C-alpha cells in the first residue's frame, strides 16, 4: 500500500472515528462507525489479512452494525439527549482519554522494535492458510465460540422478549379487538 493511500485511509478512519463520538444523532454516529469499520477492513487487506478484511466488511459492517441500526430505530431516541449530569467526571474523562492517547503515542513513536520478520508464507492471509490455523491449532476455541454464539442468541431472545405481564395485557385486549372487528 503506497504511503499516500495509507495517509488518506488513516485520516479517513480517524475522522470517521471522531464522527462516531461527536455527532448528536445516533444514526449518524452509527454510519460513521460503519465507515470506520470499512476503512479498517481496507487496512486489514493492505496488511495482508485479505480474508479477515472481507469478513470484517461482511460480518461487522454488514450484519452487526445493521442490528445496531435496528435497535437505534426501535428505541427511536431523541436526537439530543437532555443536557445535564455531572460534568466533573466528563472533564476528568476527557483528560484521561487524551492522556491515554498521548501515552500510546509516546509508546508507539519509539523506533520500531526489532521485530523478527518471520518467513512470510506465500499464501499469507489466504482463506486456506487461515482455515489451516483455525481448524488445526484453534479448533477447540472455534467450537467453544460456536457454543458462545448459541448462548448469546438464547440470552438475547430471553432478554429482549417483553415481560409476561405485557403479553397478558395484550391477550386480555385480544378478544375485545375481535369484537370490534366483528361489530
Amino acid at each position, binding site marked *: 500500500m503506497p504511503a499516500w493511500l495509507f495517509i488518506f485511509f488513516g485520516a479517513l478512519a480517524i475522522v470517521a472515528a471522531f464522527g462516531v463520538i461527536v455527532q448528536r444523532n445516533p444514526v449518524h454516529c452509527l454510519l460513521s462507525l460503519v465507515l470506520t469499520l470499512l476503512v479498517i477492513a481496507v487496512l486489514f487487506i493492505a496488511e495482508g489479512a485479505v480474508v479477515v478484511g472481507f469478513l470484517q466488511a461482511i460480518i461487522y459492517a454488514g450484519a452487526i452494525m445493521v442490528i445496531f441500526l435496528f435497535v437505534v430505530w426501535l428505541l427511536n431516541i431523541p436526537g439530543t439527549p437532555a443536557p445535564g449530569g455531572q460534568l466533573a*467526571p466528563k472533564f*476528568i*474523562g476527557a483528560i*484521561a*482519554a487524551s*492522556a*491515554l492517547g498521548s*501515552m500510546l503515542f*509516546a*509508546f508507539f513513536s*519509539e523506533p520500531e522494535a526489532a521485530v523478527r520478520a518471520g518467513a512470510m508464507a506465500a499464501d499469507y492471509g489466504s482463506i486456506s492458510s487461515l482455515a489451516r490455523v483455525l481448524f488445526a491449532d484453534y479448533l477447540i476455541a472455534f467450537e467453544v465460540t460456536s457454543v458462545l454464539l448459541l448462548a448469546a442468541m438464547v440470552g438475547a431472545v430471553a432478554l429482549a422478549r417483553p415481560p409476561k405481564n405485557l403479553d397478558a395485557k395484550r391477550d386480555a385486549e385480544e378478544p375485545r379487538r375481535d369484537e370490534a372487528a366483528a361489530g
Partner: protein
Amino acid sequence: MTVEFPALALILAFPALGVLFNLFLGPRYGRRSVNLVGPGVMFAAFAVAAWSFLELISMAPGSALAVTLWRWIAAGNFHADIGLKLDALSALMVMVVTGVGALIHLYSVGYMEHDEDIARYFTYLNLFAFSMLVLVLADNLLLMFVGWEGVGLCSYLLIGFWYTDRQFAYNGRKAFVVNRVGDAGFMLGIFTIVAALAHEGVWTLEFSQLQMHAQLISPVMATAACLLLLVGATGKSAQIPLYVWLPDAMVGPTPVSALIHAATMVTAGVYMIARLHFLYQLAPVAMEVVAAVGAVTALYAAAIAIVQPDIKRVLAYSTISQLGYMFLGVGVGAFGAGIFHLMTHAFFKGLLFLCSGAVIHALAGEQDMNKMGALRKKLPITFATMLTATFAITAVPGFSGYFSKDLILESTFTSGHAWLWLLGVIAAGFTAFYMFRLIFMTFYGNSRVEADKLPHLHESPPVMTIALIILAVLAALGGWIGLPQGFLWGDAIGRFLAPVVGEFVPAFHASAAMLSMAATGAGALGFALAWLCYIRAPELAGWIAAHARASYQLLLHKFYVDELYNLLVTRPLFFVSTTVLGRAVDTFAIDGMVNGAGLAVESTGRLARRVESGNVQHYALLYLLGALGIAAYYLYRVLA
C-alpha cells in the same frame, strides 16, 4: 472358606425397595398397596435369607457367604467397603430379623388398620428392617455402626410415631439421646481399635482382619476398647446404666415394641459383643464387667417388673432383664448360649408383645392391667399363645426359654461365677412371678374392664392371630435345636456357632441336672407366689404393698433412677447450656464478635459507598485511571 454370594444384597434390597415405595408411592396408592408391599418385601427378604441360610449350612462348618458391593471409604492406608458377610452368627441373626420381622409386619397390618398414617408407619418399619440387616450383615465395624445408627433412628421415629402427643415425642427424644450417649462410647471404641491397630501398622475394621490381628492389640487397649463398646451396647440393649429409655419406648405402637424393643434392635449389643468375642477374650476384665452388668440388670429389671401396672411396661422390664441374661451369657464366655437365648427370646418376647398388643387392641388402647382380667374366654387364641410364651420365658422345661436360659446359667456357674449365677436364679424366680402375675391379672380373676369397652371386646383378626400362632409354635419348640450336651442331637446351635464365636470351655464340671433343678425350682416358687397373690387371695397383693410401702414405692418408681439421672445429668446440663453458655458466652462473646464485625463492615461500607455512584462511566473512568497508572509505570520502564 468364604464364597462370593451376590444374592446377599437382595436381602437388603427388598426392604430398601419397600422404603422407597412406601415413602413416595404409598400415600398415593393407599392402604391396600402399602399393606401388600410393607410385609411383602419382608417375606421376600426372608425367602432370600432362608435360601442363603441353606446355602450356608450345606457348606463346611466355619465357612461364610460374602459379597463386597463397592469401595465405600478410602483414606490413605485405611479403607472400608460396603461388604456383606453371612457366617453362622449373622445367618442366625438374619433369620431371626427377617422371620420375626416378617411376622410382625404382617401383624401390623391388622394392628394398624385404624391408623391413618399407615404408609409412614411401614416406611419406618421397612427402614428399620433394612438398617437392622445392615447391622447384622456388615462385614466391618464401620458399616455395622451405620446400621447401628440406623436402627437407633428408626426406633426414635417409631417411638414418636404418634408425635401429636407431646409425651410420646418426648419419650422418643429420650430414647434417642440416651442412645447417643451409648453411640458415643461405641464410636470411641471403634477409634480405639483403629488407633491400637494402626499403631501396629494394620489399617482395617473388617471383622475377619480384626480377628486375624487381634493379638496385636495390647490388653490395656483391648480392655479400653471393649469397655467403650460395652457402653454402646448398654445403650442399645438397655442395660444398666443406660436402660432408662426402653420402658418409655413402650409408647410406640405395640408391633414396634415387639420388633424393635424386644426381638431385634435391643439385641444388637449382644450381637456386637458376640461378633467381637475375640476382642473381649483378650480383655477378661471387660468380660467380667459385661457379665456383672448382665446379671445385675437381669435381677434389677425383674424386680421392677414385679409391681408395674402397665402391661407393656412389665414386658419392657422383662425384656431388659432377659437382655441381662444374654449379657451374662456372653460375659462369662458362653457366646453361643447368649446368641441362643437371643434367638429364643426373640420368639417368645416378640410373641408376648404381640399378645399384649392383641389385648390392648381388643381393649381399644387400654394398657393398665388393673382394668383387665377374665379375658381368657374373650381372647382364646391370644390367651393360648400368650400362655405358651409365658411358659417359654419362665423356662418351663421343654419350652424354648428353658434350654437357652438354662444353658446360660449353667455356663455361668461352671465358668466359676457362683454369685452371678445366684443372681440369675433369683431373677428367674422374679421372672416367673411377674409373668404369671401378668397372665393372672389379664386373663383370670374377675373382669375389671371398663363398661364402655366391653361391647367391642373381640378376638383379633386372623392376619394378627396367624402371626401369634406361628410365633407360639416357635416359642414352644424353638429351643429344641439346642439341647443339653449328649442329649439326642445335643447342642446343635452351639456346634453351628462354634466356628464363629468359639467353644465355651467350662472351668470345672457340675451336674447340669442339679443346676437346672435350681433354676426351675426358683421359677416354680415364683409361679406359686403369683398364684397365691392373684388367684388364691387377690387381696394379698394390696396388703403387701400397703405394709412394705417403702420398697413397693421404690420398685414402682423404678428405684427413682430417672429422677436421679435428671438430677445428676440433665439439670446441670441445662443449667450450663442455658445460663453459662446461652447467656454469657453466646450473648456477649459470640454475638458481640458477630455484630462487631458487621458493624465494622457497615461503617467502612458507608464510607466506601461514596465511590459507588452506580454510573457506569464513573466506573469506567476509575478503571481507565488505574490502567493508565500501570501503563505509565511500564512506559517509564521502557523509556528510561
